[in-house]
């Protein structure tokens, strides 16, 4: 069993002794009162001490678990604190004044220390905050820049996809226009030829019709060729594997699904191998109209090769824009 000694008493004693020294100049009555208090407290102390000694001798070998001991001690201390009431040292005002002054000064000093400490901490935290904010701003800028770049690239990507079709139609319009009656060749034959071919449709239209037919009626993807289809164009499509004739009806062609939009790639392998065949086919074609294919001198381009081919085969070519060679077929 443990008994708690009232620990405040030694501190009170020290305070009282200090008070005694400070109130030397004041009345002796205050001193006497204080001394009386001291004696009382000391008597109490002795009594408690005797009780403790008795208790100790009774239960000497009480070596119970330390944790249990601690628990008991803490709970009993808690009870003591709860019961204790704040009590004035003494009712003498000089003593109280002196004690109060001293306490307040000490408290003042301690609070000043606390203040300076917390100010320093606050400043440090503010610096850290500023640094973090600038860091965050930089990162945000970087993020924005990267996002913009991403959107820009995406839009360019889309545009390029979109413009692929535009490019295709532009190219078709440029390189394979409608046969145009404005040429430098012999006008007579041309005029005679074009009377019969007034309603020719452009290559892009042919291709468009073919693709639409394939998509709409996959079971019957044939387009009937008639006079509106300019024969050189149809022959070109057939020769390059873009279209094939209907197996039974010679007037129908269809589009192969296995071709991609990159016309270069579909034409390149054909060029080298089928040169002679093409020449033969072209020359053996049954038509009495003047052939005309627009040709451009694009060095090293596929079109250049094709037109060279055609030129070698004697197919008449005529110009539809400046800087273009033209050959006539008599």
């Amino acid at each position, binding site marked *: 069993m*443990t*008994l708690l000694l009232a620990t405040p008493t*030694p501190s009170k*004693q020290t305070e009282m002794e200090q008070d005694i020294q400070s109130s030397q100049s004041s009345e002796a009555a205050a001193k006497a009162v204080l001394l009386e208090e001291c004696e009382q407290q000391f008597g109490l*102390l002795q009594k408690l*001490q005797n009780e403790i000694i008795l208790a*100790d001798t009774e239960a000497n070998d009480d070596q119970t678990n*330390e944790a249990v001991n601690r628990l008991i001690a803490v709970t009993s*201390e808690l009870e003591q604190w709860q019961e204790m009431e704040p009590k004035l040292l003494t009712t003498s005002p000089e003593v109280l004044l002196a004690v109060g002054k001293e306490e307040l000064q000490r408290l003042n000093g301690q609070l000043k220390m606390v203040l300076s400490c917390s100010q320093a901490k606050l400043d440090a935290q503010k610096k850290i905050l500023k640094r973090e904010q600038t860091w965050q701003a930089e990162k945000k800028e970087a993020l924005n820049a990267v996002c913009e770049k991403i959107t820009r690239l995406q839009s360019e990507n889309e545009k390029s996809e979109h413009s692929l079709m535009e490019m295709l139609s532009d190219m078709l319009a440029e390189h394979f226009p409608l046969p145009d009656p404005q040429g430098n060749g012999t006008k007579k034959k041309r005029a005679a030829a074009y009377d019969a071919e007034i309603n020719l449709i452009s290559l892009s239209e042919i291709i468009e019709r073919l693709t639409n037919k394939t998509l709409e009626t996959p079971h019957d993807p044939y387009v009937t060729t008639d006079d509106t289809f300019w024969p050189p164009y149809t022959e070109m499509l057939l020769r390059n594997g873009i279209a094939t004739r209907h197996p039974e009806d010679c007037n129908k062609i269809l589009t192969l699904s296995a071709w991609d939009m990159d016309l270069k790639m579909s034409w390149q392998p054909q060029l080298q191998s089928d040169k002679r065949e093409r020449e033969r086919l072209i020359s053996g074609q049954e038509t009495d109209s003047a052939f005309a294919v627009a040709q451009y001198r694009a060095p090293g381009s596929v079109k250049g090769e094709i037109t060279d081919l055609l030129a070698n085969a004697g197919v008449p070519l005529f110009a539809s824009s400046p800087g273009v060679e033209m050959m006539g077929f008599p």
Partner: protein
Amino acid sequence: MALLTPYSKVPELNTATVLLVENEEELQSKLANAIVQYEKDFNVNVRLARKLPLPVENKETRPRIDLIVFIVNLLSERSLQSVESSLAHLHSDCFLGKVCFLVTDARCGSHTQERLVSVRKLAASHQCPVICAEHRTADGVNAAAVRLLNILKVTAGMSPIATTALYLSSLTRCSVTSDLEED
């Protein structure tokens, strides 16, 4: 059994007594001098011992001891062993705030780390604080003296009303985390 009991004597006026227990007697005297030098407001009695139990002859003249400090030198194995054997001579009531461990040379090698862990486990089992001190420089000794004085003031009852030895020990007791135990 001559156990050292915490409350068997009446405390003296305006005095605190601290007992420094050290096997090697290196740091004791230096620390004692520093403690006595630092404290001006009240009397400090510093008593030195090599181990417990204290000699029976002085029992009557010895004042009430407010704080028992076990100084452990981590470089020697015997230091810790003597402390462990001395602990058996303490009344269990002493561990309620009147015992403190002071270790030196805690950064000097790998063996010291293991011993530090074992000291901490020992202190945690008794729920007492552990102070690390550096005893080779005067600054280190002074710092240790100041820290011990702070604890002494509380255990002798010289600090403001609400701080008792038990309370302080609950706040400052050594705790062994699971990381240490895994080591």
